[in-house]
Each structure stands twice: as structure tokens, then as C-alpha cells.
């Protein structure tokens, strides 16, 4: 199933105006400066925010169409969404959180193991570390067997090694379940590694230049000054 | 087991309870009382409360029920006497209650609500008769019921209170002293059998009992006539 979306919305300091599509089994990575509108885009896909105009089509379902006044509520879009601030339900332990909307309760235990928090399943969210909470939120989203997965900086609180492992797991899970994934990250290496498609979002619009600028940044005078101390690392992921 | 339900004006609770015990022993008919202000009982009755008998604190309401076809002809079941009571025994050293009230030290006097409580109306009439009503205005404290008027006096919240003779037989009542207010009209309390009663025979038996010497004895014990 392919997601196709195009929408406009006036935010306070710029207009969001973007269109993109993400094919089945593909992973689209959104990247861009802070405050650029990535989370807002994800929220619109999830049905939590309403574009001023535009259209969202998933496969042959129309989720949103400003012309025909169609707006499918989040419940019926059947997707997985890991929020940027990964809020779990504070009254439930990690297992119950992950199992909150699970299709098969059995899978939940496995998922928690895959994400290496199986031993913490009896703990409440405030009793575990930030990275552990984040991983639980991913389990929660996956356990409901979504048709589309929205991940808003899901690994931001994880160390490189854990992150690397989980990214692999996510990839293989995706292959098993075959749904499109839209992924927000600030880590370009990660973006380039994961992405089937890249969507650089700057001030609400797609901006391919930004990515270029970011990677091959001309060493400015300032940068030269710093160069003495800066490590040049070749990261082997 | 036979049973009647009686709506009783709150001032008559003590006497009523003893009568009920006596009556039950004699007739094996159980008597249940509901006690609150006469006004409340009246509005219950006109809204269909399942009482068999109504013992009011006045004459007016039973008469009205009778007129509206809700009750039989009323009869008088008790007469009460107004008194002026004080917790301070020195208070009664004066010759008359008027003199006692004129004492400088008497700053506050409780009286039951003159519009809603019969004892309040009676006290007002007595004060008017002796020409003290206007002068005492600033010292008067209004209690809602005659029992509350007595409470004020017994807790020394006021220096003296117009209340019912029946108050003097209680434990606290005995600790103080009182004047009988002869100038106050007697408080005539009348009762009636309600038309909706489901057990007229038993209700009539209790009505008769109220007029009997045995009941009279209890009434006197509690300060009624």
C-alpha cells in the first residue's frame, strides 16, 4: 500500500506546503532543521491535526480530502506512531503499555525481547531510563500491526550500538510485515543508511539543497579554526 | 403485626416516644414516629406521605388539612406553656420575669421564630402585653425552633430564652431556673387522623389513647397539659 500526501497549512512563521509519496515496503526518511515542520507533517498523517487543504491517500482509501470534506479519524487509519516525546501510559507497566493495542498478546513478549527490554516488563515508565521508554513506545506501535508506521525520532535517546542493532531489527520487521515507514531523524548517517527515499523538510517545504549543504559544508573560516581539534571520524556502521 | 406511622412535631418527641412504648405494650400495635418541623411534615402530607396520624405543633395546619379533605376533624392532644429559662440561677432571683429581663446584665435573649414557631408567637404576644416588645428588640436573638432557643440558653450563648415548659424536664433543663409566662397564650397542639390511612382502626385506637389518663400522665411529666 502506498501513501500519497499533499497538504498546506499556515503555521505561525511559515507555510507548510509539501507533497510526497511513500511506496509499500519503502522507508521514507524526513530530515531537516528543528522547528521545520516534521512533527506537524507526521501528526497530519496520523489524523491528529487537520491540514488547511490537501489530500492524503493510503492505497485506495482516502484519509483526508479537503475538497470532499473527508477526514478519517485516527482510530480508523490503523497506523503505528511513535511520538517524539514517546509518552507511554503512566499507569501501566512496560508490558501492558506494549500490549495496549496488540493484535496478539503473545507477540508482545517477543517484541520486548527484540528491543532488549524484556527484563523490565513489570516496571512502570517512570522507573526506566529514557532510551528504555523509547524502545517500549516502538514495541507499542509495532504490536498493533500497523499498516503504516510513523516514527518521530524513535532512536534519539539511544547509544550508537543499541541504535544500530534496533535499526536492523526494525528493518527486518518491516520486511516481514511490509508496511511503509515514515521516519524522522536528525542523524544524517542514519538517514542515508535507512532511506529508500529522503525528504528534507525546511520551513515547511521540501528542500534538497539543505541536505547537500549539510554534508558537504564548505569549511568556513570558523570551521577552519576549529579544525585543529575536530576529529575526523570514519564511522563504520 | 399491626403498625401505624405518625408524623410528630419535633417539640413533642420525648413525650411521644414514651407514649408509643406504653401504647405498644397495651395494644401490641407498633407505632413509628417521624419527627421534624410541623411545616416539613405538612408538606410531606399534602404530597402523599403515608402517615396515619399527624400530631402538629399548632392548630392551624390540622384544620387546613381537614378543610382540604385530607384529614378527619382535628382534636387537641396537648397544651404547652411558655417559660423564660436561664442557665444562670441568679437570673430567677428577680420578682417577676419582666424585672429579670430588665437587669443590665441580660444582654441577649433568645426567642423562637415568631413567624414559624408557635412558641415564638406566644412569647411575642406576652412581651407585647407587658409593653416590652419594642424595647427588647435589640437584645433578641431569633432561633428557628423552640428547641434551638433552649439550646442557646443552655450553652450560655444567650442569657435567657423563651422556651417550652417541656424543656425543664430534660437533664440540662434541670440545671437552670425558669419563670412561667402567664401572659403568653397556651400553645394548643392539635392532631388529626389522615384520610389516606390504611389502618384506621389502629389509628383511632392511638387517637383515643392520646386522650386517655395514661397519656395525660406522660404529658404532664414532660411539661404539657
Amino acid at each position, binding site marked *: 500500500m502506498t501513501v500519497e500526501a499533499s497538504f498546506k497549512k499556515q503555521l505561525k512563521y511559515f507555510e507548510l506546503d509539501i507533497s510526497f509519496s511513500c511506496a509499500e515496503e519503502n522507508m521514507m526518511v524526513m530530515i531537516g532543521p528543528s522547528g521545520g515542520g516534521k512533527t506537524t507533517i507526521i501528526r497530519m498523517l*496520523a*489524523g*491528529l491535526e487537520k491540514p488547511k487543504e490537501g489530500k492524503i491517500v493510503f492505497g485506495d482509501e482516502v484519509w483526508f480530502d479537503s475538497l470532499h470534506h473527508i477526514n478519517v*479519524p*485516527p*482510530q*480508523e*487509519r*490503523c*497506523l*503505528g*506512531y511513535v*511520538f517524539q*516525546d514517546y*509518552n507511554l*501510559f*503512566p*499507569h*501501566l507497566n512496560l508490558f501492558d503499555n506494549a500490549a*495496549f*493495542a496488540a493484535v496478539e498478546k503473545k507477540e508482545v513478549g517477543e517484541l520486548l525481547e527484540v528491543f532488549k527490554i524484556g527484563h523490565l516488563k513489570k516496571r512502570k515508565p517512570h522507573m526506566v531510563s529514557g532510551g528504555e521508554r523509547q524502545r517500549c513506545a516502538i514495541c*507499542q506501535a509495532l504490536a*498493533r500491526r500497523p499498516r503504516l508506521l510513523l516514527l518521530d525520532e524513535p532512536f534519539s535517546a539511544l547509544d550508537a550500538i543499541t541504535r544500530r542493532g534496533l535499526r536492523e531489527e526494525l528493518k527486518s520487521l518491516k520486511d516481514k510485515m511490509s508496511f511503509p515507514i515514515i521516519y524522522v531523524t536528525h542523524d544524517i548517517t542514519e538517514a542515508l543508511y535507512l532511506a529508500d527515499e529522503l525528504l528534507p523538510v525546511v520551513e515547511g517545504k521540501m528542500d534538497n539543497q539543505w541536505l547537500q549543504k549539510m554534508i558537504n559544508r564548505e569549511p568556513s573560516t570558523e570551521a577552519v579554526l576549529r579544525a585543529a581539534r575536530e576529529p575526523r571520524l570514519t564511522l563504520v556502521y | 403485626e399491626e403498625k401505624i*406511622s405518625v*408524623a410528630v412535631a*419535633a*417539640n413533642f*418527641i*420525648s413525650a411521644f*416516644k414514651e407514649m408509643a412504648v406504653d401504647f405498644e405494650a397495651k395494644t401490641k400495635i407498633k407505632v*413509628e*414516629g*417521624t*419527627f*421534624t418541623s410541623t411545616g*416539613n411534615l405538612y*408538606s*410531606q402530607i399534602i*404530597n*402523599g*406521605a*403515608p*402517615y396515619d396520624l399527624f400530631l402538629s405543633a399548632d392548630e392551624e395546619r390540622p384544620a387546613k388539612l381537614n378543610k382540604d379533605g385530607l384529614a378527619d376533624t382535628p382534636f387537641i392532644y396537648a397544651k404547652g406553656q411558655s417559660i423564660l429559662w436561664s442557665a444562670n440561677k441568679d437570673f430567677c432571683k428577680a420578682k417577676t420575669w419582666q424585672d429579670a429581663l430588665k437587669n443590665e446584665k441580660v444582654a441577649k435573649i433568645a426567642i423562637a421564630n415568631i413567624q414559624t414557631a408557635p412558641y415564638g408567637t406566644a412569647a411575642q404576644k406576652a412581651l407585647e402585653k407587658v409593653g416590652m416588645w419594642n424595647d427588647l428588640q435589640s437584645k433578641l436573638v431569633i432561633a428557628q*425552633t423552640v*428547641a434551638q432557643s*433552649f*439550646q442557646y440558653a*443552655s450553652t450560655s450563648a444567650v442569657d435567657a430564652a423563651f422556651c417550652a415548659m417541656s*424543656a425543664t424536664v*430534660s*437533664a*440540662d*433543663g434541670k440545671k437552670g431556673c425558669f419563670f412561667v409566662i402567664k401572659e403568653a397564650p397556651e400553645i394548643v397542639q392539635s392532631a388529626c387522623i389522615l384520610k389516606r390511612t390504611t389502618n384506621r382502626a389502629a389509628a383511632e385506637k392511638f387517637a383515643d389513647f392520646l386522650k386517655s389518663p395514661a397519656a395525660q400522665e406522660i404529658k404532664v411529666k414532660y411539661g404539657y397539659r
Partner: protein
Amino acid sequence: MDYLALYVTLKLAVVTTVLLMIIAAPIAYVLAYYRFAGKSLLEALIYLPIALPPTVIGFYLIIFMGPKGFIGRIWEMLTGGSLLFTFIGIAIASVIYSIPFAVQPMKAAFSKIDRRLLESAYVLGLSKKATFFRVIIPNSASGIAAAAILVFLHSIGAFGVLLMVGGSIPGETRVASIAIYEAVEMMNYQAAAMMALSFIPISYAFLLLINKLNEARS
């Protein structure tokens, strides 16, 4: 000491509390999450039972619940019996009398819940109703406890209303507070004080229970 009256009091308080938790929750939900014309007016109406003196409420309840009243007639059609002067009658009166104490703290608790939790639940496919039971209720435990405590204690002390609607039928509608009232009226202050003191352990036990439940949750 009138143990039967104490028993009726407890029974009434428990019944009222349970019923009101069920009735008040949806009302509080609507007040917390929806905006509509006349909402404040509706709220004012719901809260009116606190603002009115108990005797006045009792007075109107008699009218409504009496054989000629709206509720009374429906009840008679359904059951053939009268509502006034029965336990069910005082239970209904007590529920109406205590509604505001259940609605207000629940509303406060509901409206304090982090919106993001609700969004999360919606995205996970939960209907509004399911979200209410699985997210809002469990995260409002302290507000619900507050409501339960207020309602329970308030219905122990309720008296003016019950006396009007219930009379004083031993074992049926004669609650402890009526017994106290009668003792006071009879100037039997010691008996009144004894009875009133017995409320302390009852309230205490209930508070302990609620606090325990509340702690177990969190």
C-alpha cells in the same frame, strides 16, 4: 446507640457512592471535554443541589417523587409501589443531593489529563469510549477518590433531605443523622454526641480504604 440506624446509614452511603461514581463519570466527561452553548448553565443546574438548603431540596423532591410527581408516577407505573418513604426513595434523593460532589472533582481530574495520552490512545485505535475507560479513568484515580470521599461522607451527614423524603422508618429510612437530630430535639445531648462520635471511625475506615485503593493504583 441506634445500631440499626447506623447500618442503614452505611448501606445508604455505600449505595449512593457506587451509583454516583457511575452516573457522574459521563457527566464529568462531557463537562471536561466538550464545549457547547449553555454548558455553564447546565453546570450551574447540576451544582444547584449544593447551593440550596437541604429542606428546600427535600421539599421539591417530595413533589417530584410523590404520587403526583413526575418521577413518582413513573415509578408507580413500573413497580406499582410508592417511592417516598422507602429505601430506594432515599437512595435517589441522596444521589441527587450529592451529584455536585461527584461531578466537580471528577471533571477537574479529567480535564487535567495530558492531551498527548488521549492522542496516543486514538492513534492506537481506541474509540472515545474505550479511551475513557482505559486511559482517562485510570489516570484520574486521585480525582475519583476525592469524589468518592466527598460523596460518601456527605451522604452520611445528609439529613434534611432524607427526613423529608424518607420519614424515619426504622431499618428502612431512619439513618443515624436523623437519630442524632431527634436526640438533639429531645435535648438528649449526650446521646447525640455519642452517635456523632461514631461517625469518626466510620469515616476513618472509609478514608483508609480509599487511600489504599489509590496507592495500589499508582
